């Protein structure tokens, strides 16, 4: 067989993988492992990233779900529709394009992208992503598990979230809202069930601009299905926006080895993927993003 014929086959295969938005090759680290594990131990660095290294943005790994909350969106309430229409995302298929028209099977939220300079994505200004969006974004998250709490430390944005495991109950109507909300958890068999509320409504559910109010209640169910895999399903209950609870696509995370993330100097552990306004808003947005969208600054 000629070299180029073989190479063409490899390239075609890999192109197909990426065309599906699924990311990287079938790495050993994402294969189910028969290694012993404690189903109540979620500690470690987990990733949904499809690159060979398992980090660095981009697409998700082959079996990890996509980058949206779910394509099956419940009908909006009138307020929900208004909030949805006000959000102008820059992810998904370009609004009004032939590409968008060719995919009617996708929810409209995934077919209405505008250039970032003309959009309203709060993360374009380095605001915190919020819980659901951070969990969906395909970059590593480290679970730091203590007896009475779990910290989720997200590489993207370098944000941290606390999930309490000390038996506390959520406050019905928190006095002050948080970008990362308030979270408490319990074990239901081998599932960690996290209940959260008190979310700042300026965050989006996902990067397609799905809205929520400050009354959103979020339930997450984590289950470690093998040594290498954690599965997550989320349910949003926000009757001011959605006419029934919205259940997410099942998302999977795979375990990254301790030295799985490494700088060119060999330094391991989560990278500092901070979106700093000094770099993004003052430089990139003003000098590149905005003029690319026809917005100029004097």
């Amino acid at each position, binding site marked *: 067989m000629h070299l180029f014929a073989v*190479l063409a086959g490899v390239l075609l295969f890999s192109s197909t993988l990426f065309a599906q938005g699924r*990311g990287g090759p079938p790495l050993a680290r994402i294969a189910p492992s028969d290694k012993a594990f404690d189903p109540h131990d979620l500690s470690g660095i987990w990733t949904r990233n499809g690159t060979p290294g398992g980090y660095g943005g*981009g697409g998700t790994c082959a079996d990890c779900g996509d980058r949206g909350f779910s*394509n099956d969106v419940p009908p909006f309430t009138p307020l929900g529709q208004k909030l949805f229409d006000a959000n102008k995302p820059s992810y998904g298929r370009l609004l009004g394009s032939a590409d968008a028209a060719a995919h009617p099977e996708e929810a409209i939220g995934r077919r209405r*992208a505008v250039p970032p300079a003309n959009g309203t994505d709060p993360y374009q200004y380095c605001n915190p992503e919020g819980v659901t969006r951070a969990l969906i974004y395909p970059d590593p998250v480290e679970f730091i598990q203590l007896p009475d709490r779990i910290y989720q430390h997200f590489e993207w944005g370098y944000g941290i979230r606390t999930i309490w495991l000390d038996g506390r109950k959520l406050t019905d109507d928190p006095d002050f809202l948080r970008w990362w909300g308030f979270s408490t958890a319990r074990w239901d068999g081998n599932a960690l069930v996290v209940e959260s509320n008190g979310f700042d409504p300026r965050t989006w559910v996902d990067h397609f601009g799905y809205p929520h109010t400050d009354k959103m209640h979020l339930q997450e169910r984590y289950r470690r299905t093998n040594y290498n895999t954690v599965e997550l399903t989320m349910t949003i209950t926000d009757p001011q926006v959605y006419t029934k609870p919205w259940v997410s696509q099942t998302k999977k995370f795979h375990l990254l080895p301790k030295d799985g993330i490494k700088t060119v100097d060999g330094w391991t552990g989560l990278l500092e993927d901070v979106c700093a306004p000094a770099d*993004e808003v003052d430089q990139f947005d003003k000098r590149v993003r905005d003029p*690319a969208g026809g917005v100029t600054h004097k």
Partner: protein
Amino acid sequence: MQSNLAVALRLGAVFLIVSALLFAHHGTATSYDNSKTFTTQATVTEFRYANPHPQLYFDVKDDQGNVAHWSGEIAPNPAQLIQVGWGRKRSEAALAPGTVITITISPSRVMDAHVGLVQKIVGGSGELVLGTIALNPGGGEPTPKK
């Protein structure tokens, strides 16, 4: 001697790594028109190795000697660049001000904005700088059918 298959698989693996960079992380692809992608010689004026968007600023001279100042978006962020060996020091050295490069750009959909998405950079010695830094044209990703 390596078999053709082994060589092809090795090349394929490299392709997989650089292809991973094809994915936008920040939804900016909607700003650019891939159908108008072009290649030109340019001189670097500034390079910013920053999260989440590295930026390249460069001058392009036309046949009459007129100089246009361009701003370029580098799609992969530093986390992606280090996976293919392009750390800050190496990148900044390869794109120091005054460096002459051959650059492939997808320009903004806004006419004459002189802003573009950087698809490829070839240095003076023929080196592919920053790997292959193209971006997913859709700016997002396909979603599964219901």
